[in-house]
Each structure stands twice: as C-alpha cells, then as structure tokens.
C-alpha cells in the first residue's frame, strides 16, 4: 500500500507539487489526472525515488522514500513518460539487463523474461533492436521492464500516450488484469481512460490536489454526464454549463 503525506516539490521558484496527500490500497488502480504541467510526473518521480521531495514523505509498504530509497525501488515497477529505452540493445538484452539489475535469481531470469514477453505480447520482437521498434512496441517493452520482477506497486506515467486505439485497448486490459494483487498508479490526461480502468481518480492542477474520489462521482457532477466538462470546471475553476461542484 502507498501512503503519501504532504509531499511537495519546488524547482527553485516554481512549486511543482504542493502538499499532496493520498493513499492507494492493494487492488486499487489510481488514475492521476491533470492538465499538462500539473505535477503528475513530478509526483511519480518522487514516488520512484528519482527526485527527492522538498517536503513531506511517502511510504511504499512501510518503506519511506526518504530513508530507504533502494528498498522502495525494489518494490516498484516504473514506466517513465515517453518510455525511454536503450536503443542499441535488443529487446532480449534489455530485459535481461533489467532483470539482472533487479537482482532476479540467475536460474529464474529466463522465466521472468519469457513471462513478460508473453504478458506484454512482444515475443515476436524479442531479438529485434529496440531502435527499430514502433512506438507501440516500445511502450510495451517499457511495460515489460516494469513488470519483470512482479512488483507490488506499478507506477505508469502516461502508459497509453501516442498509441493507436487497438493498442490502447490492449494496454488497458493488461492493466486491468494486473490490478487484482497490485497497487497501480497511472497518470493520464485522457478522461475515458480513467473511466475504463481506474477504481479511483485524483485530479491535480498547478501542483494541488483538487479532487479525490471514484470516477463515477466525477461523472455525476455533470448533469449532462460529461466528464471532460467536470474536468475543465475543476482544473480551471471556470463555470461550465451543467456542472455543479
């Protein structure tokens, strides 16, 4: 379980994240919503111990991101924004590299790689150079890397961004199938995605948490049933027809 308490991050003058608190329990899929530059990625980078918070703390299954960053990282599978990968490796080499850095047992390494190749449906490109892959495949390779050690927590930064509708569907069903025994946090600015896969949604804008609830509550705020109206009303503070906050 993830517990975030008053997490803040400033970059010199700019306050990217302002005192955000929330919890994610096992089996939950938390959708992190917000306009571009809202602080979604920054929060995720703090949870994965890539960035140190300016203030506040978070614990992942009892381990603090401040005191035990290496232990925290062991529990998390992380897919960074835009799925950066080592272009000069093949998919197979890359996944073995990730498995070794995750300190997976030598004799279980093969199975772990085979397993994620199957789950993420990238078996057919196993020996292909990463450089030659299409965007969709790259996303899935990045996903495979995040899943290789069967983590308790998955942090996915815009996992479906730039994919075609079929690929989006595949990734969403994959996330749903994984949800049962993991904590999953995913960021997105696609609202339909929240309704499709998330059990809870948090909306942040300019680093502040503005909404925390279930996706259907979000929909009910609009008399027309339009989630994007509600999103606009919450994040911009403007009056939008049919929305009561």
């Amino acid at each position, binding site marked *: 379980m993830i517990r975030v308490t008053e997490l803040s991050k400033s970059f010199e003058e700019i306050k990217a994240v302002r005192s955000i608190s929330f919890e994610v329990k096992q089996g939950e899929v938390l959708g992190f919503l917000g306009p571009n530059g809202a602080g979604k990625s920054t929060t995720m980078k703090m949870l994965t111990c*890539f960035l140190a918070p300016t203030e506040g703390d978070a614990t992942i299954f009892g381990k603090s991101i401040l005191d035990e960053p*290496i232990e925290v990282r062991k529990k998390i599978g992380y897919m960074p924004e835009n799925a950066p990968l080592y272009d000069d490796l093949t998919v197979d080499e890359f996944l073995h590299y990730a498995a070794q*850095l*995750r*300190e997976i047992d030598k004799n279980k390494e093969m199975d772990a790689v085979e397993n994620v190749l199957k789950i993420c449906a990238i078996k057919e490109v196993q020996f292909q150079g990463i450089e030659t892959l299409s965007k969709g495949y790259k996303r899935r390779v990045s996903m495979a890397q995040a899943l290789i050690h069967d983590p308790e927590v998955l942090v996915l930064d815009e996992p479906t961004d730039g994919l075609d509708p079929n690929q989006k569907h595949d990734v969403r069903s994959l996330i749903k199938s994984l949800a049962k025994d993991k904590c999953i946090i995913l960021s997105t600015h696609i609202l339909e995605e929240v309704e499709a896969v998330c059990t809870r949604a948090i909306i942040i804008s300019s680093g502040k948490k503005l909404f925390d609830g279930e996706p259907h509550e979000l929909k009910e705020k609009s008399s027309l049933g339009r989630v994007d109206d509600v999103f606009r009303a919450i994040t911009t503070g403007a009056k939008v027809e049919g929305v009561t906050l």
Partner: protein
Amino acid sequence: MISHSVKTIFKKELKSYFATPLGYVFCVIFLFSIGYVTFESGKGSFFVLRQADLSSFFRYIPWLFLFLVPAVSMRLWAEERKSGTIELLLTLPVTVREAVLGKFLASWAFIGFNLLCTFPIVLTVLYLGDPDIFVILVGYLGAFLLGGAYLAIGCFFSALTKNQVISFICTVVFCYLLTMAGSPPILEFLSTFFHRYFLNLFESLSIINHFETMGRGVVRLGDLWFFAVIILAWLYGCEAILDEKKAS
C-alpha cells in the same frame, strides 16, 4: 566489494562499445595514430634515436588521449540524460555511485583494451633490441592511469550537460589545462598574478609530469596517489552533479 549492480552495468556498457561502431572506430583511429607517431620520421623519432625503448610511444600517448578519451567519455551520461534513460536506470535499485562506477570502469577497461592492442609495437622493440621490460610495463601502467584520469574528468563533464559536443569540448580544454599545468608558458603567465607557493601547487597538478616519470620506469607512490586522487575526486564530483541535476 564491487556490487552486483556495478558488475551488471559494467558488462552492459563494455558490450555496447562493440555493439556500436564507436568501439571499432576508436580502436582503428587510436592504433593507426599511435603507430604512425611512434615510427614517424621527424626528429626524436624511434629510428633516429636508435634506442630499443618505447619513449617515443609514451611521449605521444597524452596527446592522443587528450582527443580520443573525451570522445569515449562524452556520451556516458550526456546520452542517458538526453534520451531520458537515466530515469530508467536510476529508478532501478541502483545507487548513483554504483552507476557512475560501473560506467567508468567499463570505459576504462575499453581504454585498457586499446592499450593492449598496441602489443605489436612492444614486439617490434623486443625484436630489434633488448629493452627493459619493467620500464615498458610501468609505462603502460602510467598510460592506463592517465587514460583513467582523463576519463574521470570526462565523466564529470558528461554529467554536467545533455549535449555531447559541449561535454567533449569542456573535457578537452580541462584535460589540456591539467596536462600543461607545469609547462613554462602557463607558469610564467600565472606568476604575474600569483604567489610562488601557488605556482608550486599548480605545477604539482600537472598530469604530464606524473606521467613522464612513469614513462621512464619510475614508480613513485606519490604519482600513484596523484592519479588515484584525481580519478576518485572527479568521479565523486560526477556523482554529486548527477544527484543534483539528474532530473533537469
């Protein structure tokens, strides 16, 4: 002492030199240049001196390394930062120190491999005369340490920027300054501003003085310390920079 992560990163990085053209291009250019300058026909060259030793070989090593080593080091971190893979690497259970060490050792091993590939020059000298093998070995050790020092400086500048060209130029300039620190023109120039004590300190920083004593086959503890301190200090700087700037 060396952790599992360091070994894994070391292996992957070393392999990448031979998976891309970089490794081969470097190897060919280095070996061609060092072979040429060792046996070229100017004064002070091997055939004019008529001595079966490697002094002409070791004399040119710092100048070749000055341009070639930064070409190896420039991509180490700049590329990771540019492509964003640094986020991937440093969210795996790996500390910054392990990552810095793994990458540095891999590129150092690559430089070492290139030095080993110059063995035909040693064989030539052995064939032509009866050189002191110990002097040659110490010279090679010196060259290896020199490469390590340049690399550590390169690591630092590579961590400082996302741009490989800037990283290359800064490394060349800085290595040049450190190499030439003991040379008369630079010391004379500095003596117009600084006290004598500072000049001595500056002169003792000169990489080439420490390298040249080793090229003559003299192993002084002070020289070994010098290279160890240079390498560790710059790597530590690299680690600090990455801790601070990795996300920007």
